[in-house]
């Protein structure tokens, strides 16, 4: 073509604008999803709270959605979630932090190149598989090794499995934060005669603290929302826990919020009864807790980004 052809310019622009808005729609779908989640949960939860008072729900210490006497106190479920969160935190936070220190300060590039993907595998295994492992391998193994009276369904093996699953979350985000610590800080410390141990624990970890903190919150939020492991291995006994009695907390069956939702979901109570609606009230509680934790984690993380970039 010797002459530039301008006749398609209008069409081109129109098409360009059309695609721009099409793509924008795709991006806005994510906001629509959030709105849909909140509305879905709210509409049925509001229905539920018309039948069961909000105060009874939030302060009741008995959860029995289908068996008489019916009670919808969410506290036993929250304490079940708390047990799993504490247990998995005891496993994942120290191990994840040490892993991050090892990867960031000690490991050679080559070793890091195969350790990191191997750790990521821990987060990639389907949770239903972890739940099965906890039930058929971990519980019998602990029962055989430790001189304790462990129930078939217990919080201990479920927490260990949830803990192992969230290790890579703690380690990868913490390691990113540690790698972002400027080398000059390390060099200054070495110059004063510090060993690698001192540099890692007294310089790098404090400097990366907000990133580490952010990884902890994110990992715990993940543990709170974890469903299949606890549904399979932790049992279905909603009960209040006694924080002064760790054996009673971990050795027996409990029921976290997610597990209670699965129990209602697999039951035959489809329809409009309060048991079915309670699914959404518990779901809303779970959503609010994890949402707030994710937001805090995001805010803390953005603070450390500002400091070192």
């Amino acid at each position: 073509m010797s002459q530039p052809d301008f006749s398609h310019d209008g069409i081109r622009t129109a098409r360009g604008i059309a695609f721009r808005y099409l793509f924008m729609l795709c991006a806005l779908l994510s906001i629509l999803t959030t709105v849909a989640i909140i509305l879905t949960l709210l509409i049925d939860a509001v229905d539920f709270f018309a039948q069961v008072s909000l105060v009874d729900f939030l302060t009741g210490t008995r959860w029995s959605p289908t068996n008489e006497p019916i009670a919808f106190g969410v506290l036993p479920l929250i304490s079940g979630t708390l047990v799993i969160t504490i247990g998995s935190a005891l496993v994942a936070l120290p191990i994840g932090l040490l892993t991050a220190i090892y990867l960031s300060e000690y490991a050679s590039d080559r070793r890091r190149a195969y350790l990191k993907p191997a750790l990521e595998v821990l987060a990639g295994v389907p949770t239903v598989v972890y739940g099965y492992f906890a039930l058929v391998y971990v519980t019998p193994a602990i029962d055989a090794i430790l001189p304790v009276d462990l129930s078939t369904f217990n919080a201990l093996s479920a927490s260990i499995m949830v803990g192992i699953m969230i290790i890579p979350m703690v380690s990868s985000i913490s390691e990113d934060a540690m790698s972002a610590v400027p080398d000059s800080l390390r060099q200054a410390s070495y110059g004063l005669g510090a060993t690698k141990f001192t540099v890692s624990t007294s310089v790098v970890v404090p400097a990366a603290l907000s990133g580490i903190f952010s990884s902890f919150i994110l990992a715990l939020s993940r543990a709170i929302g974890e469903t299949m492991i606890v549904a399979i291995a932790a049992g279905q006994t909603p009960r209040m826990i006694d924080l002064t009695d760790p054996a009673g907390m971990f050795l027996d069956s409990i029921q976290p919020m997610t597990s209670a939702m699965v129990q209602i979901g697999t039951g035959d109570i489809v329809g409009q009864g309060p048991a079915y609606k309670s699914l959404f009230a518990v779901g809303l509680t779970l959503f609010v807790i994890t949402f707030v934790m994710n937001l805090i984690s995001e805010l803390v993380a953005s603070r450390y980004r500002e400091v070192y970039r």
Partner: protein
Amino acid sequence: MAADTGETPADGFGRVSRTKDVAFRLLALAATLVGIVSLAALLLNVAVDAVGWLDWQFLTNPPHPNPYEAGFLPALVGSIAIMLMIALVTFPLGVGAAVYLEEYANDGYLTRFIQLNIANLAGVPSVVYGLLGLGLFVGLFNIGYGSVLAAAFTIALLILPIVIISAQEAIRAVPDSQRQASYGMGATKWQTIRNVVLPRAMPGIMTGTILALGRAIGETAPLIMIAAPTTVFGLPNSFFSKVSAMPLQIYNWASYPQTEFQYGVVAAGVVTLLVVLLTINSIAIVIRNRYQQRT
């Protein structure tokens, strides 16, 4: 180094620190390995248990109360059907959103809000997405309890944030010089995206999407919430037929008390699920490696 030759100060500062240093190094290494080793031991256990149970008959039979006749076929086919639907839904939506955020959007309030929102969606528990599916697709749109479509749409929304984030990274990795070259040739924005950015980013986008599909195939809780039946005997034959999936069938079998199920049939199911997952992830890695060699 001079400091390592043993000339320790009188207060023993150097020696104590070095012992601590070595001990800490070993502790950190042990912590790094403990999760990996535990998982390896569990995988070995389940692989050994699956021997003798994972055979052709298991892969081609429908479920059965007798463990020796129980099979996995409907769950296997159901999982793959759901996964293909998810791919069809998430790929265009995820790429579209990523293109908008990376190529069109300015760094304004709305963009930052969308970005924060996507990050938050990635952290919403999967069981909550299940309730969304129950309220929206099953309740409002009425596409059937536990149907292929309801299952696919629900899990598609769940993995969409992951697909968007990885597609954004792939698009961001395309050098700006290539865009400038395209504009310099007189190409419009859309032509630049279609002919330069997307082809260049495609391997990365594919890798991210396939890895997200791997996550999708293991999801169980959303399927329970939309009331997908835990056991299905026939194959799905329409978008609206009730569908089971591998993880759901495993969940159902895991509650059977017989040893033949607990340490036999379920183990075979778990190994099948993990092999499918491994295959999916290998495809993603092959695509990534081929791409890395080319550039």
